[in-house]
Each structure stands twice: as structure tokens, then as C-alpha cells.
């Protein structure tokens, strides 16, 4: 693109065409999330942070449930003064969102009064409400775990009949499905119950620091606030514990590089008492700490450690070697705590006067108060619960596949949740009438068409934003959750001019400069390609990936901010990291030599 001819505005939604041949797949999404002419009046941006890949028909439930809950919290529960909720639309598998700002000053005043009665109550009673939240969340998880896998016996079990149960097993399918769906929508309400308030308190401190110390880095502020024993570190802590157990029980030699999970499990089972005891320890760690997904849990194919043990097992040999070498393995929690206090005290000392120090004390106290939730909710909501949810849907997929609806269970994710209910009812009817279900003739070509559409959509770029550019982005929800400002929009508009540069820019997440060989890792299956000393270049990382940080020299991701998983763990390991580059995995070639400057957020392609 010629630099002089860069576009001044983004395309209108109505000008974005459904890619030819994918119209059927596009039509699967419900009417209320299809773009209409009226949407041309509004500004939309592509939510590549949460939905970086084209969405399959079922996975759109995540957007639907999440925005339903986010908006309710903002608009109706806490009454944020300057913003309502977020609208979402989908085209070519890409999720676009647009915020609804409140601009009428009178309305802002009215909502401010409501906000202070509601949100302030949450701040004042944070710990007890958060304890209550954890109870609710654990109950929800228990309920989800207790739900039976769907099954249709040939004859209703005799004990049901004798007990006068009065409903047959086909009805249980509907109950389980609807409860599963209801649980997912409910989980997202829990997810947003505190979230904006938590981010708001954090950003209050963040904004103050940026004003008092204009050149302070985001990562330094993050370090002052971040928790030290947050849930996010637990899965990796458990792996270290298991590695230590393996050495103590002298079973660590069973974890050979390159051995499959089945081989390792077999040889541990054959290893007598020590093997049995280690497997018991594994069981303790798995529930719940291996319920972390290889993505952020928004897609059905973000599987967990529990679903695939190869990731955690691949990390054990390295940790076991460290134990054998007598190296300290545990995170130095006390040292980290002391360092954090020192950091806070050092910045405090530099403030101009006692007034500023008093304000600083007030703001960091609040940030520390809210942060356990901000960090902790992800494990319960986006990992543990979404994992249960998608696996339950998968079990419906397996049942439908067994009845000939699909070639395999995973195909279920190409139906919307409305269509899935219809397919389940089709099967319920067939089971009751004794006829054949209609689904086996109906769904396979549709699934094939939608799979092809997803592949096609993934091959096309999509505009970063649509519609008229607002003069100012003053919506705290948009700024907080997506980091989108007027400045970043201007960068998007001029991005075309910079495509031939040999630099990739992102958030400076963890400082330090290193050079090395880039290893593009697009999925968890490719992790085994990482060699000691490589630089990890990936779409996004999450707690599952933590153990590989012992192998790499630096990390670069397409997605994420200074509080993202990759950033937090890189700081923990003292590795340079640049996150949220947008396009590192497509611009950098596998095996290419690159320089990562984590202090400036710049990746340089060397040749």
C-alpha cells in the first residue's frame, strides 16, 4: 500500500462481503448477530484478542454468553456512569464488537449516583463477596461435574420404572443439555461480577503512576500490583512438586524424552509401589490444577492438561534434572514478596510530596485488594469451567456420532447451540418413535460446508475495524479490556504503510534483549519442536505453556497485554518478552534469526 494513499477511515460494515462460497456457513449464525444496514452508523472493531481465529458455529456461544453477562454488569448491575454494554456481530467467522457509550451529562450524573451505591459496596465488601463468589463458582463446577453423560438405553432401566420415575431417558438429554448451556451462561455472569470493578481499581493506580512517572513501563506497574501466590502459578508449581516426588520415589527415569504418555503411564504402573504412589500424587494435582486449557478457553479445541497429559509430562524431565542437580526449584515466594514491597516503597519515595504519597497509598491498597479476583477468576471460569462445558458438549457429539449424525464427535461444534438442541430433540423423537433420526441425512453435508468455510475464512485477512471513527474512545470498558485508544486506531489505519519493515512491535512485557532462532509454535502439538535456547513465537500463551519457559530464551506473542500470561511468566523467569504484536506468527519465519527487545516491545527480523 502506498503511504500517501492510506485510508482515512475503516470500511463500513455493509461494504464487507461474505466470502464467496461461505454464504451458507455465514447464515448459520443467528439473525441478531448478522450485520445490518443500520450498523453502518456505528464504530466496530475486530475482537482479535479473544477471538483470534474464525469462530465455528457452536463456539459463538462464548461471545453470546460473555457479552450478555458483561453488558448486564455494566448497564444494569453496577451502572457504570459512562458506558453501557457491548454489541457483537459476526462476519466471515470474525467477531466484531462495538461499545455503547453514555454521553448525556445528565445521564452520567444519574448513573454515577447508582454506581456509587453498587460498585462502592462491592469495593467495601470485596473480600467477603469474593469468598461468596468462590463458593458460588465451586458449586457451579460441582453441578457441572455431577451432570451425567448423555446416553439412551434400548429399554428404560427397570428401577426407573419401578420407582415410578415417570420421565424417560430421552428427556434427560434435554435436561442435561439445557442445564449445560444454562451453566455456561451463568458462569459468564459470575465471570463479570467483579471484573470491570477489578480492572477499574487497577487502572486507577495505573493511571496515577503514568501521571506521576510519565516514563514508567507498564510492566513495572504490573509488577507492583501482581499477586505472588496467584492461582495462575499453581499448575506449574504442581509440576515442580511432581518432579520432586518423582526424584524422591526414584521414578523420574520413566519420563524419557520422546516417550508417549501411554508408554510413561504403563511403565509407571509396572514400577510397583513407588510408581503407584507417584500416580496418586498425579491424581491429587490433576484435580483441579490440570484443568487449564491450551488457549484461553474460548474455543472448543482449547483442550486441557487433563485431556492431554503430554504437555505436563514433557516438562517433568527438565524439572527432575534440576532437582537431581540440587538447584532450587520452588518459586522464591518470600523473596518475590520482599522485592515487590521494595519496588512499591522505592516509587513511593520518589513522589513529589505527602499528598501524592497519601493518594498512592489509597490507590495501591485498592488495587491489591481487587487483584486476587482479577488474577484468580480465569482459572475457575475460563479454564476449569469452560473445559467441563466443552467436554460435556463433546459427549453429546459422541452420542450423536454414534447415532450416525456425524463422522466424529468433534463435528458437533459446527452446529450452533440452537441447532444442537434441535439435533438432540431429533434423536429424542427418533428414540421414542422407534424411527430413524433425520440428522444423519441432514447434518453431514452442512458440517462439511462449515468446515470448508472456516478454512476459507482463516485464509483471508479481516479489517481491524469497521465504520466511522469516533473522535475519542472514552469507554472505560473498551480501554480496559482491549487497550483500544484513538491512538491505536490511528496506528491501525497507517499499518499498511509499514508492512515491509523488518520490525514487529508489541507491548513491552518483560525487559532484556536477546538474539536467537525463532520457533513458530501455532498449536500445542508443535511445542515439541522447541529446542533449548529457541525464541518462542506464538499466537497466545496460557498457563499450560508455563513449563516450556524453562527451555526458551525469549517469548513473542500475537495476542496479549502486559498482564497477559506470557508477560507474567516471562517476568517470573527473567526472559525478554514482547506480546500483543498482532502478527508476529505470520511475519516471522520459522528458523529465522530475530532480536527481541522486551524493554521496548520491538522484535527485529535479522535476515
Amino acid at each position, binding site marked *: 500500500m502506498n503511504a500517501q494513499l492510506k485510508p482515512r477511515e475503516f470500511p463500513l460494515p455493509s461494504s464487507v462481503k461474505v466470502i464467496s462460497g461461505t454464504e451458507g456457513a455465514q447464515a448459520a449464525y443467528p439473525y441478531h448477530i448478522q450485520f445490518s444496514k443500520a450498523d453502518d452508523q456505528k464504530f466496530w472493531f475486530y475482537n482479535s484478542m479473544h477471538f483470534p481465529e474464525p469462530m465455528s458455529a457452536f463456539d459463538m456461544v462464548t461471545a453470546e454468553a460473555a457479552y450478555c453477562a458483561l453488558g448486564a454488569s455494566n448497564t444494569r448491575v453496577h451502572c*457504570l*456512569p*459512562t458506558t453501557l454494554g457491548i454489541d457483537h456481530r459476526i462476519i466471515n467467522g470474525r467477531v466484531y464488537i462495538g461499545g455503547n457509550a453514555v454521553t448525556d*451529562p445528565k445521564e*452520567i450524573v444519574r448513573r*454515577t449516583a447508582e*454506581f*456509587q451505591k453498587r*460498585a*462502592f459496596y462491592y*469495593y*467495601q465488601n470485596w473480600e467477603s463477596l469474593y469468598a461468596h463468589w468462590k463458593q458460588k463458582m465451586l458449586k457451579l463446577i460441582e453441578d457441572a461435574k455431577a451432570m451425567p453423560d448423555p446416553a439412551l438405553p434400548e429399554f428404560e432401566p427397570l428401577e426407573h420404572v419401578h420407582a415410578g420415575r415417570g420421565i424417560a431417558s430421552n428427556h434427560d438429554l434435554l435436561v442435561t443439555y439445557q442445564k449445560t448451556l444454562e451453566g455456561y451462561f451463568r458462569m459468564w455472569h459470575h465471570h463479570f461480577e467483579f471484573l470491570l*470493578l477489578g480492572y*477499574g*481499581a487497577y*487502572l*486507577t493506580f495505573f*493511571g*496515577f503512576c503514568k*501521571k*506521576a*512517572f*510519565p*516514563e*514508567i*513501563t507498564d*510492566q*513495572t506497574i504490573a509488577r507492583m500490583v501482581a499477586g505472588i501466590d496467584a492461582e495462575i502459578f499453581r499448575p506449574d508449581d504442581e509440576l515442580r512438586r511432581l518432579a520432586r516426588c518423582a526424584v524422591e520415589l526414584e521414578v523420574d527415569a520413566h519420563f524419557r524424552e520422546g516417550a508417549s504418555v501411554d508408554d510413561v503411564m504403563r511403565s509407571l504402573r509396572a514400577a510397583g509401589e513407588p510408581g503407584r504412589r507417584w500416580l496418586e500424587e498425579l491424581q491429587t494435582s490433576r484435580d483441579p490444577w490440570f484443568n487449564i486449557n491450551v488457549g484461553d478457553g474460548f474455543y472448543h479445541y482449547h483442550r486441557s492438561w487433563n485431556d492431554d497429559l503430554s504437555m505436563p509430562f514433557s516438562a517433568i524431565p527438565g524439572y527432575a534434572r534440576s532437582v537431581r542437580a540440587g538447584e532450587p526449584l520452588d518459586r522464591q515466594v518470600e523473596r518475590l514478596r520482599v522485592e515487590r514491597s521494595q*519496588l512499591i516503597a*522505592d*516509587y513511593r519515595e*520518589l*513522589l*513529589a*510530596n505527602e*499528598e*501524592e504519597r*497519601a*493518594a*498512592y497509598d*489509597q*490507590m495501591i*491498597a*485498592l488495587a491489591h485488594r481487587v487483584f486476587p479476583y482479577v488474577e484468580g477468576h480465569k482459572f475457575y471460569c475460563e479454564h476449569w469451567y469452560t473445559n467441563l462445558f466443552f467436554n460435556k458438549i463433546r459427549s453429546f457429539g459422541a452420542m450423536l456420532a454414534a447415532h450416525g449424525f456425524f463422522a466424529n464427535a468433534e463435528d458437533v461444534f459446527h452446529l450452533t447451540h440452537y441447532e444442537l438442541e434441535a439435533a438432540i430433540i431429533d434423536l429424542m423423537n427418533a428414540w421414542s418413535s422407534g424411527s430413524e433420526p433425520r440428522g444423519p441425512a441432514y447434518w453431514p453435508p452442512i458440517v462439511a460446508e462449515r468446515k470448508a468455510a472456516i478454512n476459507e475464512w482463516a485464509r483471508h485477512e479481516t479489517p481491524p475495524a469497521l465504520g466511522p471513527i469516533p473522535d475519542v474512545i*472514552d469507554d*472505560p470498558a473498551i480501554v*480496559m479490556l482491549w487497550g483500544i485508544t484513538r491512538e491505536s486506531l490511528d496506528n491501525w489505519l497507517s499499518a499498511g504503510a509499514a508492512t515491509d519493515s523488518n520490525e514487529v512491535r508489541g507491548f*513491552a512485557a518483560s*525487559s532484556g534483549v536477546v538474539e536467537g532462532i525463532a520457533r513458530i509454535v501455532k498449536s500445542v502439538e508443535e511445542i515439541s519442536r522447541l529446542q533449548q535456547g529457541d525464541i518462542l513465537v506464538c499466537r497466545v500463551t496460557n498457563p499450560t505453556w508455563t513449563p516450556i519457559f524453562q527451555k526458551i530464551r525469549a517469548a513473542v506473542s500475537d495476542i496479549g497485554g502486559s498482564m497477559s500470561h506470557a508477560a507474567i511468566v516471562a517476568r517470573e523467569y527473567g526472559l525478554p518478552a514482547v506480546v500483543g504484536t498482532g502478527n508476529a506468527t505470520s511475519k516471522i519465519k520459522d528458523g529465522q534469526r530475530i532480536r527481541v*527487545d522486551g*524493554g*521496548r516491545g520491538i522484535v527485529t527480523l535479522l535476515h
Partner: protein
Amino acid sequence: MIVAKYISWFRDIGLDDRPKVGGKGGSLGELHRAGINVPAGFVVRTEAFEGFVDVLEQRSPLRARVEGLAADDLEGMGAVSRELRRRIEDAPLPADLQQEIREAYGRLGELRLPPAVAVRSSATTEDAADASFAGLQDTYLWVVQADSVMRKIRSCWASLYSLESLSYRRRRGIAESTVAMAVVVQTMVDARTAGVMFTRSPISGDRSVITIEGAWGLGSALVSGEVTPDRWVVSKITGEISVREISDKAIRHARSPVGGVEELPVEEPLRREPCLSDAELESLRAIGRQIERHYGRPQDIEWAIDRHTQQILLLQSRPETVWSNKDSQTAATRVSDPLLQVMNIFGGQR
């Protein structure tokens, strides 16, 4: 050894001695006391200047000639300036002062032969945080031999009678009896790299970062603006380097074999390479922080790295003045209900 009447070594003085050793001398003594490496040296105190001027006064009036000038009489001022400068530069120093300077200079020579020194004026009003008299007096670099040192001391004193200095004093009505000058005589650093350091961002006023600028060779190339320095911004607290600007440093200043300073080209690829290592940046950060803590306020610092020992030496430190005068803006204040702080985010910025 005789007790020095006119000379003080850096180790024996501090900021409190400024009335007698001037701003520069007091600051160097203070740094030395704080445990900072400064090039070895001594101060020729104001008593020496006063004694010398008293002798001149006995021959014919000097201070009265200045006080008789009108602030706007530039022509008359020029004539008086020329006359007084010549009288100062031509008159011999008193014998006891000569002896003290020769002896002290000789002791600097124990460190390296032949001792090359900087002779720098250290006015009693200069470098004070409130009145900037800086730049009106002279500095002479790479001075060798005691006779030359004494000549340059007289030149420093004479610079008090430059047209600019006289006009400055006449405009402000400063009494001549209060005017005095000390002179710093300090070993030159044969610098591999030299530069400046601000313990507060000159751009944003941020107190949490240290800005370091440096170039190859002597600091004069950078101070005079003949070379664009490399520039780093380092977090004062964490040491993270947030900005690294490595510039093309085409020339450097070096000690000339024929005396003084010469300009030399910097060869490739050195000219495009950083003139400081990360370890040196880290040492400078620690030094900057130590000096700032010692003085209790942000500082502008000149430093150099010795070509032979690779040791970092501090040449000068003075309080930062630009931002400290703007300090009235407060980022936020305490509020009765701490929760009201969140309205900064939720209340909208319209």
C-alpha cells in the same frame, strides 16, 4: 610540609565550604566525601584571589573602576574589561601561593606523568540552585606544567572581568567586594567515553528514570554539540532500559599530542556502536541514585570513563533546575473516601 593557606584538597571540603571554594569545588569535595570517584584535585580558594587582588589594588584601584561603570555604558565597560584582564593576566602570583600550587600540582603528578589537569573557575555564586552564573567563567583543559597552570588560574580570575561578567554584575548591582572566585585544578580523565546523566527525565520530568547520554572520547564533543550522543533511559528503581538510541558518532575529542584537544574521526563500525555497555549503564544508574540520595534532589551529572582503567569518574554534579521549578502539579491527592479515586477511571474524562 607547610600548612596550606590557599589550597584545599577535595577530601577536606564539602558544600558548606562553598563561600571559600566555590560551587564547583564544594560539589566535587562533597561527591568525594560521599564515596563517589572523582578525578583527584584541589581548589585554589577565594583567599588566594582576594590576596592577589589586594596586591593589585595597592598599585591602582580595581574594584572601584568597576563600580564606577554605568550598567548601560558598554563602551566604557569594554575598555575597563580589557585593562583589568590584562593587569590580572600579567601580574605574578604571590610567592607563597606559587609554592603551594607547585607542590600540590606535583602531588597530582604522582598519579600519572606528566600530569594533565583541567583548570576550572569555581565562582562562589555559580552552581547554586537559585542563581545560574554558569557559563560565564572559563575552563581550560589539558593544561600541563605548573607555570601553565598558574597562567590559567590567572585567566580564570580574569574571566570575572570579561565584558559579559561585568555587564551581568552591573545590571544586577552586585557589590564588587562580594565578588570572589576559587579555581579547581583537577586531573584530566583521558576518557574512552564521556557524557552527562540526568536523574530526572529532561523531557517529561519523570523522577523515576535516569537519562544517560554519552559519546566516544572526551565530553567536550558532546557538551559542545559537535556529536549526537547515544541516549538511554533507565528506570531508576528497576534498572530496566526503556530507550536505547544509538547514534552515528562521526567524531570524537581526544587529547592532542601538541597540547589541548583535537577532533578525530571515529572509524566504522565503532561510530555506530553503543559507547556504553549495559554493565556500565547499571553502574551509572547506581552512582546517579547515590548522588541524588546524598543531595536529596534530582541532579545533572557529568561523568567520564577512564580509557586506561575503565573506571567511571564523576566530573560534576549540580541540582536539576528546569523541572524542580515546575513542581507545583500534583498527580493526585488524598480523598476522604479512597473509593472516589476510581472515579478517575469510571467517571469519564470529558
